[in-house]
């Protein structure tokens, strides 16, 4: 089978599965609804309860889950390849900690900085992620020559703990209800309520994916090391810069939409590599699609497993992701 044929076949298979999951997931919930009725245009909107549940209550949530899942999985693939580190996640470089600090500030000081109908928590969270990206990027490129991936990692990890300390401090100052709200945000919540936050986050994510589209072959070469990649024709520093900025921007947008949902960015890339190999021309699109389907399924579990109680999706992904991560560590060593 030719290489192109293999890429198209594998990615199409993932696309079909993901499409089915995204259409099917909104039909599942505490009230059962029928897809036939949802799309039955002979019933007026006001009388079509199934359609209302599907389009108003559940579809925004499923779309948010698929957008966040796709983004975190893709950012994980890109950052792992760029850092040559299979254990890197979209949150390794400090983006999520910055986002969390922004969100905490918005919740606890009840900031009113909403724009375009998007509330202040996602806005502040996105702003926080931009601050973190700026700091890490400035530190890593302060070296004379290009961008140091070692400094990126060290700065990211340090920034993560520093911001976590600030978050604890801010929480300590807060009263009980605000603190609870803040903790809830940290667990990840895809109940976005409307399409508006999705539309707000989408442009940043789409811009990042436009960059991802030109990266795959470069990511393959980077995994052989900077020197070999350069000798094979890769502008290494430029590629690393674009990879870092696009993956971080997308992560910031995704976290502002759904909170810092953990483990997606590491489980999905590894599962996909186990299934399809390491060619990033397949791993990146397949991982993106699988990330969407995976988080939609996790969120489906989150809202049905203890129904009518909805548990935060971050708990589900962590419960699946923690043991998986450990298994991975044992397998690698």
């Amino acid at each position: 089978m030719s290489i192109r044929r293999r890429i198209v076949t594998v990615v199409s298979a993932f696309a079909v599965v993901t499409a089915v999951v995204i259409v099917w997931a909104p039909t599942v919930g505490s009230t059962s609804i029928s897809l036939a009725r949802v799309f039955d245009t002979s019933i007026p909107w006001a009388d079509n309860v199934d359609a209302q549940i599907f389009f108003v209550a559940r579809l925004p949530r499923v779309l948010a889950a698929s957008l966040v899942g796709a983004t975190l999985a893709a950012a994980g693939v890109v950052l792992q390849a760029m850092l040559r580190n299979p254990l890197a996640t979209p949150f390794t470089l400090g983006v999520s900690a910055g986002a969390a600090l922004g969100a905490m500030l918005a919740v606890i000081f009840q900031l009113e900085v909403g724009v375009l109908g998007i509330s202040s928590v996602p806005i502040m969270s996105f702003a926080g992620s931009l601050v973190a990206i700026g700091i890490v990027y400035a530190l890593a490129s302060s070296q004379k020559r290009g961008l140091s991936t070692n400094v990126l990692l060290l700065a990211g990890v340090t920034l993560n703990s520093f911001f976590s300390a600030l978050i604890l401090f801010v929480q300590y100052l807060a009263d009980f209800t605000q603190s609870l709200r803040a903790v809830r945000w940290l667990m990840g919540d895809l109940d976005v309520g409307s399409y508006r936050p999705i539309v707000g986050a989408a442009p940043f994510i789409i811009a990042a994916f436009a960059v991802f589209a030109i990266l795959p072959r470069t990511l393959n070469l980077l995994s052989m090391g900077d020197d070999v990649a350069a000798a094979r024709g890769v502008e290494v520093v430029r590629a690393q810069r674009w990879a870092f900025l696009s993956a971080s921007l997308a992560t910031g947008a995704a976290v502002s939409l759904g909170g810092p949902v953990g483990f997606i960015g590491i489980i999905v890339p590894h599962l996909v590599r186990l299934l399809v190999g390491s060619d990033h021309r397949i791993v990146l699109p397949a991982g993106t699609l699988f990330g969407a389907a995976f988080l939609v399924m996790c969120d489906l579990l989150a809202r049905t497993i203890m129904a009518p109680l909805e548990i935060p999706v971050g708990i589900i992904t962590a419960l699946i992701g923690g043991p998986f991560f450990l298994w991975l560590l044992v397998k690698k060593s």
Partner: protein
Amino acid sequence: MPTLLWADNVSFRYAPAGPQVVDGVTIRISDGALVGILGPNGSGKTTLLRLLSGTRRPSSGRVLLGPDDLTNLSRRDIARRIAVVPQETELAFEYSALEIVLMGRHPHLGLFTVEGPADIEIAMAALSATGTAPLAGRLFHTLSGGEKQRVVIAGALAQSPQLLLLDEPTASLDLGYQLEVSTLLQRLNRDQAVTMAISTHDLNLAASICRELILMRDGRVIAAGPTNDVLTPEHVRVLYDVEADVHVHHDTGHLTVVPVRRVPR
């Protein structure tokens, strides 16, 4: 033979105030040559190779590939004409030998172009030329040191380069694999007319396969020319502060260097 690559009085330092790692080096590599760059650790061999492959830019001087200054060429343009083989290759993820070799086609492909039948043919030819065709489907990390190095050389050949630069290609291999790789390099140069420059500190490897040598110490060229003229006890002494016996091996017919004792500098 016409000159393929000409380093014209190049110097390089890593930090502005740091030492000159390469200090006013002028060398010519002619078409079809098999040149050894010899010198002790820290003599600037690896840095010189980086300047020759354009992955670093000289602080002063210039490197000409044919008529073109490397500084004016993009990485992609250079990679179509010069390929590099490192001492060792460690992968962050698992790839098959064929995938590694196909990555050599990168500079010849457009942004969204996927390797076609012609590229696969070139990759298979490179695998055959290095005796690694039977390993095509194997995962790289399951190969032995010698097999890995031959696959990486195949990947460099798949770049269809005019010039192959090898940085201590046998330094991390045991004796058997050293012989395997050095024989391969000699054969590629002879049968496929691949021009090569090999940096090494293995005098006997250089003596056995290189027709010309460039001797480096402290970033400078001490001597350069045909192997039989350059590889003398005096030069070995200047290079390594070692008194050595240099003689023609009766069996192989090339020079052999036997270190005798360390001498003060």
